């Protein structure tokens, strides 16, 4: 009974990675199974059943990732892919790092795209400015604005920069998720 309680405790914790609506039914099913095994076959059979479920985290992984998440990711739908990334990121240091790098790159890309748009709206105030010990890449205005050096190249540089940042962010996340999926598949292989 102690082993069963401990397993159910581990399972409850491992199920945190699933969407809220799926946790309780998944938990109830394992709990009901173990009680059924205990009632029908006795305590020794519970140990066999616990072995059959495998470690709680791996069981939850096979329940969620092997089917739903890998399919979600393969669907290439942005919402599903982001869901996959968030679920994996909760338990993978590699993917947490990848998602962080991707987030920074995505913010950079958005910033650069914003500069490109600003250059169209206010070309005189947008560019790479240097002088007075300051460097400003973007929008600068006012009497104390530094001297502009890169006005006419800014759209091209920002467009290329944002495209490269988006591409890099996508590749970083894709590599992180692929690594996680292949690790999972290796663990699930017989």
């Amino acid at each position, binding site marked *: 009974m102690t082993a069963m309680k401990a397993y159910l405790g581990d399972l409850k914790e491992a199920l945190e990675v699933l969407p809220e609506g799926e946790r309780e039914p998944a938990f109830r099913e394992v709990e009901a199974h173990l009680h*059924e*095994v205990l009632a*029908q076959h006795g305590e020794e059979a519970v140990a066999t059943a616990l*072995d059959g479920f495998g470690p709680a985290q791996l069981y939850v992984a*096979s329940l969620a990732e092997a089917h739903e998440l890998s399919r979600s990711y393969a669907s290439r739908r942005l919402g599903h892919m982001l869901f996959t990334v968030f679920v994996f990121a909760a338990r993978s240091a590699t993917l947490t790092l990848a998602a962080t790098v991707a987030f920074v790159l995505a913010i950079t890309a958005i910033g650069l795209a914003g500069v490109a748009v600003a250059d169209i709206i206010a070309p005189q105030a947008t560019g790479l400015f240097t002088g007075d010990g300051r460097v400003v890449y973007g929008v600068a205005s006012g009497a104390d604005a530094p001297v502009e050096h890169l006005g006419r190249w800014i759209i091209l540089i920002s467009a290329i920069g944002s495209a490269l940042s988006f591409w890099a962010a996508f590749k970083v996340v894709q590599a992180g998720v692929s690594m996680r999926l292949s690790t999972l598949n290796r663990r699930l292989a017989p």
Partner: protein
Amino acid sequence: MDHGTWMTQLRKGALDAAVLGVLARERRLYGLALLDRLNAAGLGVTEGALYPLLARLEKAEVLAASWVMEDGASHPRKYYTLTPAGIGLLAQMRPSWDAFSAQVTDLMKERSQS
């Protein structure tokens, strides 16, 4: 790959069909009863393989499930039944399985004779 690995993969690949087949015969079963039937047939199925499969088949609407609290029971049981889609899928699987297994049997015979 050794024989044990090959058998595990074979069982894993055929488990969907076996689950549908058992449920078609028994009409409705809960998890442990289903596991016992599969293992009595020598499939060597574990809980860790069966329940994720049941969840997948339920999501695909091939199976339907409902919790039932029976008299005198301390816990409710989750009973699985085939949906009309599941019955249709099994009807498609049967001839495919027959044809596939016959082809593989033929190929293996030819190889052992040559």
